[in-house]
């Protein structure tokens, strides 16, 4: 029997919050485990997910009315200093308790599974980032290089 053609998935990761960092990494690692070829293009705030340290990836209760809270919280209280750090540490505890992988682990698994990760060169220039701030093993490119792969992909996602 002829081997079926390898499926491909192209993802744009444009968000840099703790909650929105998960979908690209979860889908990429899983697709790789299924034998798919995967490429993630990190642009704008998504670029933060390629930094060597992911300690600055946080979640905010502000402007996030769907976030489950132990007690109902008025919007003004959510904006108080320290609320973002508190929400982040609460979320990280939950992640650990429920056996959800850390972002660091998922990202390492992406690299091990040959998921191709591309940092948006334009955003790097725009935010005046330095390439030394990013992890090893990634590529740098622009819209045309993403579209070249996405044009052949079975699944394309903008996250």
């Amino acid at each position, binding site marked *: 029997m002829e081997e079926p053609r390898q499926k491909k998935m192209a993802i744009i990761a444009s968000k840099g919050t703790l909650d929105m960092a998960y979908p690209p990494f*979860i889908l990429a690692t899983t697709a790789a485990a*299924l034998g798919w070829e995967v490429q993630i293009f990190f642009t704008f705030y998504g670029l933060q997910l390629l930094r060597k340290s992911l300690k600055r990836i946080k979640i905010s209760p502000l402007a996030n009315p769907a976030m489950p809270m132990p007690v109902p919280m008025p919007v003004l209280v959510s904006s108080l200093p320290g609320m973002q750090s508190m929400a982040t540490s609460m979320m990280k505890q939950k992640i650990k308790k*429920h*056996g959800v*992988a850390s972002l660091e682990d998922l990202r390492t698994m992406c690299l091990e599974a040959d998921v191709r990760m591309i940092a948006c060169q334009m955003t790097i220039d725009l935010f005046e980032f330095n390439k030394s701030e990013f992890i090893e093993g990634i590529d740098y490119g622009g819209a045309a290089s993403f579209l070249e792969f996405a044009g052949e992909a079975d699944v394309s996602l903008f996250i």
Partner: protein
Amino acid sequence: MTTVNHDKELDARGLSCPLPILKTKKALGELASGQVLKVVATDPGSIKDMQAFANQTGNPLVSQAEQGKEYVFFLRKK
């Protein structure tokens, strides 16, 4: 449930999506063709996910069962 002789066992208890699948993929990689992997998971989502994994990778899901709050899968490496 059907007891299946297996060559390796993977403990995926307490892990959430996608870890049971990622660890299953890795564990299968350490087996030879025809050998059987037993996976024990507690993630209810793994029932559907393990079937989807088996269908897409061509490693047959020989048997699966629910034991209390645990889900037991037997996959044969293709």
